[in-house]
């Protein structure tokens, strides 16, 4: 084994504390060090994935105390898959924003990159930890860096968006504490595996109520329907790459948290139906709202919420095919939505309100960016040669296997809506004339590299979906095997 899961948290934190010191001596270090750390995290997760595939789940104890006394980190095929995805995206976001506008100023650029690094660290922590209170701490790390990053531009109305986010987040964190305390008061432990083992001892009413509090709290970050009021504003006002980071990293971590609760910790099946219902409402509401948006980033934000609804539906199906489809959707959404946010922010660069009409005729001025946006748009609709097709196919087959005809019909109808509003933008890019006089901004080299690598992944997965299906298969099997998770954590031979 090359490293161990705890380095995912220890190294970024060490770097975060060192950066203010090195920044005094060498100003560029505040930009370089976070990138190095994110690259390190990515390679670490790849090497650990290789180890896990051969030897099985790694359970790391902290402070030398075995669970349930101490906190433990779990690096299994499922959490490892998400960790790899998140750290990769974190690195790509760093690469894209390496030369971003205001980052030429020293103070803000230091804060931007530090907060970005800790946002990724917090999300990875949520995924790896095996303790619900520790999960709460990491959720707060993610939230606070999210507030800071959202209000990064002082000129825009970003403080309003951040305040909305903070308002929801603060209430959510109290609900999370209540849920944790209900569970603690009944079972006397905070370790997820220990709770899962003792769950049958708990009173049914308290079980349901604590799950409701959990879902209310985590739903804020997971953007499920009544709790996502913050999301469109945050995506609109935050810097472009941060929109990608939210869609690709933070939301994935929150979805992971809710899935871990329902699949591993709780033991009643009504929760799966709850997932399907929440997912359907979120999906329908978000996609119909996205149709009516006239701003590009807002449209992308609603589309992102809708995709998360689809992921919830797929998890709610509950079979192995369903989980497989959900993981594939998560992967695709993370890659494609980041590509759309990256290229989209160049298409409407320097425009005050970022309306969709600003992309008119950009195909001539920014050919590569436009092609990449088009690839992203086609892929997320689910057109055949691109990656999105396979994930849509997977969820439809999973639903068909369970005879959920209504579900299939709804997904297909809403997908048509999705196609309408994405193709509308693509149409504007290529077949409209440019009216504004402002010069379009050419993407810098590092941004171009980031976007092209995402575009290549979309194409490669589109042609060879088998490249990833093995990993997804193992991850899905790992999530569904609850007994194995409990055994791995609680019977540790160390």
């Amino acid at each position, binding site marked *: 084994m090359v490293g161990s899961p705890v380095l995912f948290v*220890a190294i970024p934190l060490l770097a975060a504390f060192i950066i*203010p010191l090195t920044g005094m001596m060498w100003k560029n270090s505040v930009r370089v060090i976070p990138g190095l750390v994110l690259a390190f995290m990515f390679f670490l997760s790849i090497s650990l994935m290789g180890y896990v595939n051969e030897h099985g789940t790694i359970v790391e104890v902290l402070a*030398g105390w075995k669970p349930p006394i101490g906190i433990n980190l779990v690096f299994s095929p499922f959490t490892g898959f998400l960790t790899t995805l998140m750290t990769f995206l974190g690195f790509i976001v760093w690469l894209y924003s390496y030369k971003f506008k205001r980052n030429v100023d020293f103070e803000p650029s230091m804060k931007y990159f530090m*907060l970005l690094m800790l946002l990724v660290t917090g999300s990875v922590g949520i995924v790896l930890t095996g303790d619900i209170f520790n999960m709460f701490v*990491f959720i707060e*790390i993610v939230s606070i860096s999210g507030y800071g990053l959202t209000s990064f531009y002082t000129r825009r109305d970003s403080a309003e968006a951040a305040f909305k986010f903070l308002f929801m987040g603060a209430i959510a964190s109290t609900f999370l504490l209540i849920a944790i305390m*209900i569970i603690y008061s009944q*079972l006397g432990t905070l370790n997820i595996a220990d709770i899962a083992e*003792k769950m049958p001892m708990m009173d049914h009413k*308290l079980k349901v109520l604590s799950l409701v509090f959990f879902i209310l709290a985590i739903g804020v970050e997971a953007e499920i329907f009544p709790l996502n009021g913050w999301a469109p504003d945050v995506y609109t006002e935050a810097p472009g790459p941060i929109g990608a980071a939210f869609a690709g990293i933070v939301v994935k971590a929150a979805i992971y948290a809710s899935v871990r609760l329902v699949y591993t910790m709780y033991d009643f099946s009504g929760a799966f139906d709850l997932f399907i219902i929440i997912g359907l409402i979120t999906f329908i509401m978000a996609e119909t709202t996205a149709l009516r948006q006239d701003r590009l980033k807002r449209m992308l934000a609603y589309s992102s919420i809708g995709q998360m609804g689809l992921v919830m539906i797929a998890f709610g199906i509950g079979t192995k095919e369903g989980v497989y489809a959900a993981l594939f959707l998560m992967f695709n959404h993370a890659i494609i939505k980041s590509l759309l946010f990256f290229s989209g922010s160049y298409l409407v660069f320097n425009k005050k309100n970022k309306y969709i009409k600003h992309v008119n005729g950009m195909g001539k001025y920014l050919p590569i960016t436009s092609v990449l946006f088009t690839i992203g748009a086609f892929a997320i609709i689910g057109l055949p040669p691109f990656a999105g097709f396979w994930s849509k196919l997977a969820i439809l087959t999973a639903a068909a296997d369970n005879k959920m005809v209504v579900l299939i019909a709804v997904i297909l109808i809403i997908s048509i809506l999705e196609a309408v509003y994405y193709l509308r933008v693509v149409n504007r890019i290529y077949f409209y004339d440019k009216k504004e006089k402002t010069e379009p901004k050419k993407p810098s080299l590092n941004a171009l590299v980031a976007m092209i690598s995402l575009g290549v992944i979309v194409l490669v997965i589109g042609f060879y979906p088998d490249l990833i299906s093995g990993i997804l298969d193992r991850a899905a099997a790992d999530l569904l095997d609850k007994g194995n998770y409990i055994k791995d954590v609680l019977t540790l031979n160390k």
Partner: protein
Amino acid sequence: MKKVIVLISLGILGFYLIDIFLGIGFGVQHFTAGVKDLYLSNSKDTLKVSNVVTAIVVNFRGFDTLGEVTVLFLASTALGGILYKKRHHVGERSVLFPASRVVMSGAKLLFPSIVLLGAYVFIHGHLSPGGGFQGGTIIATGFLLMLLTYRNYSVSHNRLVYFESLAGILFVSIGLVGYFSKGSFLENVLPVGNMNELFSGGVIGIIYIAVGFKVAAELTGIIYTVLHEKD
């Protein structure tokens, strides 16, 4: 109308909360096989720490505390970023009522003892109620007192950054030393000593001192940034 909806939903929430927690009961042992006894006995026998809360915060669940320290660090970072202005004038603070001579001398007299009290609280965190967060907060109140009393009292920004970073680095390094020498992050590497003595509990005391410095520097930094906010 909005108030009615809010009141109704709050009523529902309140009803359920009261229902849950009255059902749980007050002052009774709720569970039979919890980790509470393990924490108590391990803290007494293995770690020799008399304040069990400190043992939990710093050692058993030390990873939480690292996250907690990071949250504070993030809060001060985010606060600096949010309040950032292009040309940041650090001028005189706007003071509504200038302090009288009595307050000035009193503050000068009190300041060293406040800092001493704070240091006492975080050094003895494993023996008595208290610890790094509490002690750091006490020290920060001392700086707040000075900043409020003297209009031109200033704290060197760079010095705060040094304290903050070095304390944080110390915390993570202790964790990494445990990881490399004993195989698990934050594991105790020092002899535990005897119960109820200053040198007991191994690394717990050192970590709490680092936390105390860090919290004091961070809170002072936050107060300083906000006090210098002018329109």
